[in-house]
């Protein structure tokens, strides 16, 4: 009797899983569509040709290299910074990388600061931090972030919004407000309201860089940031995910909103980030950049102010 019962239970569970899965698919559940797209993308990693092997440019005062998604290698004179490092093949275990990272870990120079914008798997990648652990001199996290870091050999500190950390050589990093969320697993949302996410402003030798991380349109925050940092040279701004807009609008800027942020921040240049690396939306491939080009034209922004980089591409914005 028990054998029959166990067999029937397993059969019933299998059927239940299929019924739930089909029901979710047929009702257009967003999470199911994300999952289906991600599962279909496994094994489709695109390579990056001619990766840069020596990213430190002696002739540059300000240079940026887009590694992919929100990972950007920033050089300001002799200081090297890295944002939201992700080198792993997947994020959150079920979302595969679509394109190789734009630079190999072994070609990274020592990193004066690594900045984490928030706790989501595509921004705080513990496996990636393990890969670069011996290169990191300091890691900055938003308030409430260290609980998800686990223990590493490098020093790491939380920086609350509007507070500045002065690092060796007078390199300054300031966490600034944005509009996003600071949970990692979902249920932790209950006690992580208003913490665990930030944008960063980097200041060194008179050059100022804004790293937007991931944010919904936050005009008040941009205005306050511009008031405190009136001469931002470069803004690294997320332009995706776009769709479904009703859902994404609460936590993500689309290209149009990214340009609004660019304008409110009063930055000289913008480099778009956070697109075409992982599947976290219903966007078509290439859609964020197409919409961005359209928005730049319609907003009559000079094309040399918005630099769209390919993954692995480096741009020198200020030369010596």
């Amino acid at each position: 009797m028990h054998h029959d019962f166990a067999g029937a239970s397993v059969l019933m569970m299998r059927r239940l899983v299929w019924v739930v899965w089909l029901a979710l698919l047929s009702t257009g559940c967003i999470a199911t569509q994300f999952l289906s797209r991600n599962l279909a993308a496994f094994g489709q990693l695109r390579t990056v040709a001619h990766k840069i092997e020596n990213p430190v440019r002696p002739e540059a005062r300000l240079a940026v290299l887009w590694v992919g998604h929100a990972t950007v290698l920033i050089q300001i004179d002799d200081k090297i910074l890295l944002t939201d490092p992700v080198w792993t093949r997947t994020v959150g275990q079920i979302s595969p990388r679509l394109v190789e990272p734009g630079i190999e870990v072994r070609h990274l120079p020592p990193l004066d600061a690594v900045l984490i914008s928030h706790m989501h798997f595509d921004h705080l990648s513990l496996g990636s931090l393990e890969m670069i652990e011996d290169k990191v001199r300091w890691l900055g996290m938003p308030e409430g972030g260290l609980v998800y870091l686990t223990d590493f050999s490098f020093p790491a500190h939380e920086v609350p919004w509007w507070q500045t950390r002065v690092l060796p050589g007078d390199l300054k990093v300031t966490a600034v407000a944005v509009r996003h969320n600071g949970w990692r697993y979902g249920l932790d949302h209950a006690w992580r309201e208003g913490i665990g996410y930030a944008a960063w402003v980097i200041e060194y030798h008179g050059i100022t860089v804004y790293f937007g991380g991931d944010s919904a349109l936050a005009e008040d925050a941009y205005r306050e940031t511009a008031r405190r940092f009136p001469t931002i040279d470069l803004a690294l701004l997320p332009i995706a995910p776009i769709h479904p807009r009703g859902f994404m609008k609460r936590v993500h800027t689309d290209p149009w909103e990214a340009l609004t942020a660019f304008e409110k921040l009063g930055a000289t240049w913008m480099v778009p980030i956070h697109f075409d690396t992982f599947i976290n939306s219903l966007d078509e491939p290439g859609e964020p950049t197409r919409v961005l080009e359209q928005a730049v034209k319609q907003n009559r922004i000079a094309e040399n102010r918005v630099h769209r980089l390919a993954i692995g591409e480096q741009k020198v914005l200020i030369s010596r």
Partner: protein
Amino acid sequence: MPYRVIMMDGSFDSDDGVCRTPRCCRGKVPISVVLGLVFFLFCHDALAQSDGGAHPRPSWPWFFSQLIPSPQLVVQRDQAAFGARWQLTPILFSQGIHRSQNPWRTFVVEPIVRHSGSLEWFVSPEYLALGDDMPRHFGVRTGLRSYWPLIERGDYLSLSFGTSALRFQQITSVAYETGVHVLFGLVGFMTSCSPTPRAQRCIMTLQVRVF
């Protein structure tokens, strides 16, 4: 060969199948009820707080997620039966958490805090469909379990090893268990085997755990 199984309430069971619980202990409040009461009071107190602090604390979504059972298959001698398990963690110490953070947790444990390396005291109400008497299908397990991170500090893959005592159908048995956990601990495959003579069984659990 005659044997005795010592029970948690001080009584013992023998091979003649008669439970010799002392008369003075009959009607005693079971340990699971006491734990449940402590848990409820803790949750009620914490849920009533509205300070918005960053400390992990029970919330209603968390509370309801704890009701999700983990299905089990129990094999005992020539029988196999369906079962289910729920999980509570009264105390956990994490050795993987960042050195600046409090390593202790009670009940609510962030997945990375558990799977980056930790030792927990757990309590598991269990349902095992062994025998025909429905009320006797419920038991309670308590024990110690350690977690060891393998990939992504345990977020992607971790192992667990533990030992526990299961009080079921008036027999207390000891069990040793091992498990592998993926998807930040959301899904785990665990096996526990009990060598206790009158309760020799192996249980395979598909663990579903949200925090």
